[in-house]
C-alpha cells in the first residue's frame, strides 16, 4: 500500500538529500527537513500507534507539539532509546529507527484492542468501583493493570549523551518566531534592546511561512514572501540573538524562564558523538513577549479519532510546507473559515477536496466564494455524526444540525473519504502565560480564553493574545509593542493588509449525534481515551470542579497535557452544568510546556560532577598509602589503612594499638576552623558555649559545647586563645558551615553591639595530629626549636612555631586520651609536614590511622561524637557533661531550654557505657536496649550509639543512651537482637585511664 503522496517541492525540504529510516521494521524514505510525521504521511502511513486505555488505532493528528496520538519509541533496545517521542516534532535523519508503542504483538494487530470491546464496562473511574474483591487481591489486579498501562518503554542503559546549562540575561525575550514574534524582535532589536528570539521549530516565520495564498497579502505582497524578507533582515540585526529548535518549557516568577535548545536530535547518530545534545537555557529577561501562537481545536463527534483524521491546519501545513498530501480524497469539517484556507491550498496543488462540512448555516467570505468557484460541495449547517474504517478512515456520515445546534435532523448522508480535516477554531496558547501566574478572561464571541492580567513585566501578542487574522495580528502587535517597549518610531506604520477570512464561527463543544450519548465515543482527550460521555458521567456523579473532572476522567493528563481537548472539556462541563465558562475554573497549566528530558534539567552535574569532592592537602599521600576513604559530608576522609591482606577490623585493631603503644598520626584537616577576632571575642564565646571563657589565658585551649536554642547539643570542639582578642575555634567536620552560619546570625542580628569578626579558615590550614607515648619525640624532631617540655608546653596549651621558614601553630590537645600534638600549617605545606612527621616517627613505629580508629580511641575514653552519640534530643546534662555547663553564667545559647519541665526530668535518656557479658561480643550500633523482653509492648530504654572491640582493653566496649541511665551503673540490661538476646552491664562511659595519666605519659 506504499503510495507516494509527495507531489511538489517545498522550500523547507532539501530534495537532493534523501534519507532512509525505519518505522516498525520497514524502510521508508524522506527528505532532509521532513518530520517523521510528514515523511510517514508521504508514504501514506497514517496508523502510528494505539491509544492508552482502549488500544484504538490512532494516526497522526497534528503537525506540532500538541500531537496526542502519533507518539513513538525511538531506537528501541539501544542506549539512545526514548519513549513517547512525537512523530510530528522529530526531524528525520539517516538511520532513524522508530516503532509503535503500547501495542502487542503489533500496531496492526493489537491484543489490547479487546479493551475497546469491553469499553461499556470501563467508563471513567471504573477502577474506583471495582477490583475490591476478594480483599487483598488488589495487587494481583494491579499487576495486569500496570502492564497494560504506560506507553513507551523506559531506557535500560545509561545515557551516552551529554547536556549543559547556560544562563542568559537579556532585555527582551520573545517566545515564538511567527509573524508577530518576528515583528516584535525587529522592533526591539532596532531600538537597542538586547533581544533573544526563540522558536521550537527549525525555521523562523511560523505558519505565515507557508501562507502563500492570494487571499492574504501584506503591503501587496503574498504574506509568506513579505515575511521571508523580514526574517532575512532580522537575521542580520546586531542586538538580536536567535535560537531555533528551542522550546520554552517553563515560565516562572520574576521573568525566570527555562528553555531547551535542541542541538543534535536532528543529526544522524554517528554525528552526535562528543556533542552536546540539549542545552538548558536559564533565562532572566527584563521583559518577556509571548508570541506562542494558537492551536487549532478539533471537533467532538462520534468516532472522531480514526487514523486519517487530522486538524485542517495540519493538512494545510503538510501540503504547503512539506509538499505532502494527507490523502487523495479528503473531506474537511469545520465551524469557521480556517478549513477553507486548507481547501484552497489543496485545490492549488490539485488534490481532491471531496466536500466541506460546515456547522454554519451562513458562509460568506472571499475564501468560501473561491472554494465554491472550484466546485467543491459545501454542506452548510451540517455536522459529522459518525466515521467509518478501523485502521484508516474510509467514510463518514453527516446530518443537518437543528437551529439551536443541540440535535441533528433530516436524512443521514454518507460520504467516502480517505482523510478528514477538522477545524473547531483556535485556542490561544496561553500555557506559558498562565504558568507565570497570569490571569485569563473569557471572550464570548469566539469562545476563547485570552490573557487579561499580567503578573510580571510581560506581554502577549499575536494569536496567543486572541488575534487570529494577520490584519489584527500585525496591527495589534505593532501598537502594543510600541507601548510595551516605549518605542516612538517604527517603519511598520504603513502595513497594508488584505485577508480573505471572515471571523464568523459556530461553536458547539459537543456536536449532537443521532445516537444517544452512551452509545458514542466522542473523544475529548485522544491519548487517554476520555470521551464526552465520561465527562458527563463525572458531572452526574457529583464532580463539579474542572480539577475533579480532569482527575476523574484523566482528561488532559496525557503527554500532550490536553493541548487539544481541555477547552472542550471546559465547554462540555459548563454546558452540562448550565454555568458560564470559567466558573468551574480553568485547569492550571503546569510546567513544562512540552516534556523536558531529565538529562537536560540536570545538565553536566552527573557522574563525577554530581557533587563536589573536598580533599585534604594530604589526600594524595593517603591514596598512595592504600587508605580506604569515608564520605563525611563532602569530605573524603581516610577511614583506615589496610596492609596487604588486612580486613578493616584487623587494620583498625592494629592502628588503635599502635596509637596507644607507640605513636599514631591522623589527618584532622577537615575539622571546621573559625577565626574569631575582636575586643568582645571572649564575651561572644561566653554566650555561644555552655562553659565560661573570660578567664582562659592567652596560649591556652579549652573544649566547648554548643547548644541549639532548644537546649540540645549542636556542636563541639576545642577553641584556643591565640591572643587577647583572637581565638581559633574548631568545629566538627560536618557542622562547620552551619556553626559559622549560626554564629554570624547571632552576631549580626541579636548582638550587633559586640565587636567580633568571624572568618572560616577551614581550608587555609592542614591539621596533623600526632599522638601516643612517642608523640613528643616525633614532633620535637619536626620542630626542633620549640620547647616541648611538659612545664613549658602542658596539655591544653598552644605555641606559635616555625617549620623551616614556615609559621605554624601547635596545639597540645587530645581526642584519643594520649599525649597528643596538633600541627596547623598553611595548607600547601600540609603534605610535606605530614611526610616529615612520618620520617621523624619511623623509629617509633608511627602509624597513620583513619577515622575509624579515631572513633575507637575516643570511645575508650568516653568522648562523644556529636551526631553519633547525640541526636537532636540530647542535652549536655543527658550526656553526663554537667561539668561543662556553667551555673554562674547568666545566659548562653540554649540555657533557658535546659530548665523546661521535660528537660529537667531525671529519667531522660542519658549517656552511659555498656559492657557485654561476653567480652568478645561486639554490639551493633543502633541496637535497642531494654530491661524486660517479656513485656508487651516491649519498652525500649535507649540504643547503642557507638560500639567497638577495644584492642587496648581486650574487650568489647560500647556507649549508649539509656532512660535514667545515670542511676543504673552496674545494672544488667538486655539488647534484643533478631536471633538472640545479649546481656550487658551499664558502666562508666570512660573505659580507659579515667585519671588522664596517659596525657603526660612518657616511654
Amino acid at each position, binding site marked *: 500500500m506504499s503510495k507516494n503522496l509527495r507531489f511538489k517541492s517545498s522550500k523547507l525540504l532539501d530534495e537532493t538529500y534523501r534519507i532512509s529510516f525505519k518505522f516498525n521494521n520497514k524502510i521508508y524514505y524522506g527528505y532532509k527537513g521532513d518530520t517523521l510525521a510528514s515523511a510517514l504521511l508521504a508514504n501514506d502511513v497514517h496508523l502510528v500507534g494505539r491509544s492508552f486505555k482502549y488500544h484504538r488505532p490512532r494516526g497522526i493528528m497534528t503537525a506540532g507539539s500538541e500531537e496526542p496520538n502519533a507518539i513513538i519509541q525511538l531506537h528501541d533496545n539501544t542506549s539512545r532509546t526514548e519513549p513517547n517521542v512525537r512523530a510530528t516534532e522529530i526531524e528525520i535523519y539517516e538511520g532513524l529507527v522508530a516503532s509503535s508503542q503500547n501495542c502487542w504483538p503489533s500496531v496492526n494487530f493489537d491484543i489490547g484492542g479487546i479493551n475497546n470491546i469491553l469499553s461499556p464496562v470501563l467508563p471513567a473511574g471504573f477502577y474506583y468501583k471495582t477490583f475490591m474483591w476478594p480483599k487483598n487481591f488488589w495487587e494481583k489486579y494491579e499487576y495486569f493493570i500496570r502492564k497494560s498501562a504506560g506507553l513507551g518503554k523506559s531506557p535500560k542503559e545509561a545515557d551516552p549523551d551529554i547536556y549543559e546549562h547556560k544562563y542568559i540575561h537579556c532585555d527582551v525575550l520573545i517566545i515564538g518566531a511567527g509573524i508577530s514574534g518576528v515583528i516584535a524582535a525587529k522592533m526591539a532589536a532596532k531600538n537597542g534592546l538586547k533581544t533573544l528570539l526563540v522558536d521550537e521549530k527549525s525555521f523562523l516565520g511560523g505558519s505565515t511561512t507557508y501562507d502563500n495564498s492570494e487571499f492574504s497579502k501584506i503591503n501587496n505582497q503574498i504574506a509568506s514572501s513579505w515575511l521571508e524578507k523580514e526574517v532575512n533582515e532580522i537575521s542580520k540585526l546586531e542586538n538580536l540573538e536567535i535560537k531555533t529548535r528551542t522550546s520554552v518549557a517553563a515560565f516562572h516568577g520574576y521573568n525566570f524562564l527555562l528553555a531547551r535548545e535542541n542541538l543534535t536530535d536532528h543529526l544522524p547518530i554517528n554525528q552526535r558523538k562528543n556533542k552536546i545534545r540539549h542545552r538548558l537555557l536559564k533565562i532572566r529577561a527584563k521583559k518577556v513577549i509571548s508570541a506562542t501562537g494558537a492551536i487549532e481545536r478539533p471537533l467532538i463527534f462520534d468516532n472522531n479519532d480514526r487514523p486519517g483524521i487530522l486538524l485542517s491546519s495540519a493538512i494545510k501545513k503538510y501540503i504547503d510546507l512539506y509538499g505532502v498530501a494527507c490523502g487523495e480524497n479528503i473531506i474537511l469539517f469545520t465551524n469557521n473559515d480556517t478549513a477553507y484556507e486548507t481547501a484552497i491550498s489543496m485545490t492549488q496543488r490539485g488534490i481532491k477536496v471531496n466536500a466541506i462540512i460546515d456547522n454554519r448555516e451562513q458562509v460568506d467570505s472571499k475564501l468560501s466564494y473561491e472554494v465554491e468557484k472550484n466546485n467543491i460541495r459545501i454542506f452548510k449547517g451540517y455536522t459529522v455524526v459518525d466515521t467509518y474504517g478501523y485502521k484508516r478512515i474510509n467514510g463518514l456520515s453527516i446530518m443537518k444540525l437543528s437551529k439551536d445546534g443541540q440535535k441533528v435532523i433530516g436524512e443521514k448522508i454518507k460520504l467516502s473519504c480517505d482523510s478528514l480535516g477538522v477545524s473547531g477554531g483556535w485556542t490561544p496558547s496561553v500555557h506559558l502565560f498562565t504558568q507565570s501566574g497570569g490571569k485569563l478572561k473569557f471572550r464570548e464571541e469566539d469562545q476563547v480564553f485570552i490573557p487579561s492580567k499580567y503578573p510580571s513585566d510581560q506581554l502577549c501578542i499575536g494569536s496567543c493574545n486572541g488575534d487570529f487574522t494577520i490584519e489584527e495580528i500585525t496591527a495589534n502587535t505593532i501598537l502594543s509593542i510600541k507601548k510595551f517597549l516605549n518605542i516612538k518610531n517604527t517603519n511598520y506604520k504603513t502595513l497594508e493588509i488584505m485577508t480573505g477570512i471572515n471571523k464568523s464561527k459556530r461553536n458547539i463543544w459537543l456536536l449532537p449525534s443521532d445516537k444517544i450519548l452512551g452509545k458514542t465515543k466522542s473523544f475529548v482527550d485522544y491519548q487517554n481515551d476520555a470521551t464526552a460521555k465520561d465527562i458527563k458521567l463525572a458531572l452526574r456523579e457529583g464532580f463539579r470542579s474542572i480539577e475533579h473532572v480532569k482527575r476523574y476522567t484523566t482528561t488532559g493528563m496525557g503527554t500532550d497535557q490536553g493541548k487539544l481537548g481541555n477547552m472542550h472539556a471546559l465547554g462540555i462541563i459548563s454546558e452540562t452544568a448550565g454555568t458560564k465558562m470559567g466558573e468551574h475554573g480553568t485547569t492550571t497549566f503546569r510546567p513544562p510546556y512540552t516534556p523536558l528530558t531529565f538529562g537536560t534539567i540536570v545538565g553536566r552535574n552527573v557522574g563525577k560532577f554530581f557533587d563536589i569532592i573536598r580533599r585534604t592537602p594530604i589526600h594524595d599521600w593517603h591514596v598512595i598509602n592504600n587508605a580506604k576513604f569515608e564520605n563525611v559530608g563532602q569530605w573524603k576522609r581516610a577511614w583506615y589503612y589496610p596492609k596487604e591482606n588486612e580486613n578493616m577490623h584487623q587494620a583498625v585493631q592494629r592502628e588503635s594499638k599502635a596509637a596507644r603503644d607507640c605513636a599514631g598520626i591522623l589527618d584532622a584537616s577537615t575539622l571546621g576552623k573559625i577565626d574569631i577576632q575582636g575586643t568582645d571575642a571572649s564575651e561572644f564565646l561566653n554566650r555561644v558555649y555552655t562553659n565560661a571563657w573570660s578567664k582562659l589565658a592567652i596560649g591556652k585551649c579549652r573544649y566547648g559545647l554548643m547548644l541549639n536554642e532548644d537546649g540540645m547539643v549542636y556542636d563541639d570542639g576545642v577553641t584556643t586563645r591565640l591572643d587577647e582578642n583572637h581565638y581559633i575555634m574548631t568545629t566538627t567536620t560536618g557542622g562547620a558551615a552551619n556553626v559559622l552560619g549560626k554564629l554570624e*546570625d547571632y552576631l549580626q542580628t541579636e548582638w550587633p553591639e559586640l565587636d567580633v569578626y568571624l572568618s572560616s579558615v577551614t581550608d587555609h590550614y592542614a591539621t596533623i595530629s600526632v599522638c601516643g607515648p612517642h608523640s613528643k619525640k616525633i614532633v620535637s624532631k619536626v620542630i626542633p626549636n620549640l620547647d616541648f617540655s611538659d612545664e613549658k608546653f602542658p596539655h591544653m596549651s598552644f605555641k606559635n612555631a616555625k617549620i623551616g621558614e614556615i609559621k605554624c601553630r601547635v596545639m597540645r590537645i587530645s581526642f584519643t586520651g594520649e599525649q597528643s600534638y596538633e600541627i596547623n600549617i598553611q595548607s600547601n605545606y600540609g603534605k610535606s609536614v605530614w611526610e616529615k612527621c612520618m620520617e621523624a616517627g619511623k623509629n617509633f613505629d608511627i602509624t597513620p590511622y583513619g577515622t575509624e580508629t579515631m572513633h575507637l580511641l575516643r570511645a575508650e575514653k568516653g568522648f562523644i561524637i556529636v551526631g553519633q552519640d547525640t541526636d537532636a534530643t540530647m542535652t549536655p546534662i543527658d550526656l553526663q557533661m554537667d561539668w561543662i555547663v556553667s551555673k554562674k553564667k547568666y545566659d548562653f545559647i540554649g540555657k533557658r531550654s535546659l530548665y523546661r519541665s521535660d528537660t529537667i526530668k531525671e529519667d531522660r535518656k542519658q549517656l552511659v557505657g555498656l559492657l557485654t557479658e561476653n567480652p568478645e561480643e561486639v554490639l551493633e550500633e543502633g541496637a535497642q536496649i531494654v530491661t524486660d523482653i517479656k513485656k508487651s509492648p516491649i519498652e525500649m530504654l535507649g540504643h547503642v550509639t557507638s560500639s567497638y572491640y577495644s584492642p587496648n582493653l581486650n574487650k568489647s566496649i560500647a556507649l549508649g543512651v539509656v532512660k535514667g541511665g545515670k542511676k543504673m551503673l552496674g545494672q544488667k540490661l538486655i539488647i534484643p537482637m533478631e536471633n538472640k538476646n545479649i546481656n550487658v552491664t551499664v558502666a562508666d562511659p570512660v573505659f580507659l585511664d579515667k585519671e588522664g595519666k596517659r596525657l603526660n605519659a612518657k616511654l
Partner: protein
Amino acid sequence: MFLINCPFCGEREQSEFKAGGEAHIERPKQPTELSDDEWAEFLFMRKNIKGVQFERWNHAHGCRKWFNIARDTSNDQIKAVYKMGEKPPVK
C-alpha cells in the same frame, strides 16, 4: 526563583540566599525570667503569615550579611528590603 535585592550586593538569585524566618522576634534579654510558656513563644510560635510578612534573609553565598525583607508570601513578590536594625516599612 525570585530575585532579592541584597542591600549590600544588589540584585541576586534567591538561590544565593538562606531564609531565616519571621523577622523582629527579638531574643529575650532575660531568658531566666521567663515562664516555660513565654520561652516557648519565643522559641517556636510563629505568625506564619499569608500576605506581607517581614522576614530575615542571609546572603549566604555572597556577603554573608543578614537583612530583612517584606514579602507577600501569597505570591512571593518582594515589597521592600531593609537592613538589620532598621524599622520595617509601613505596609
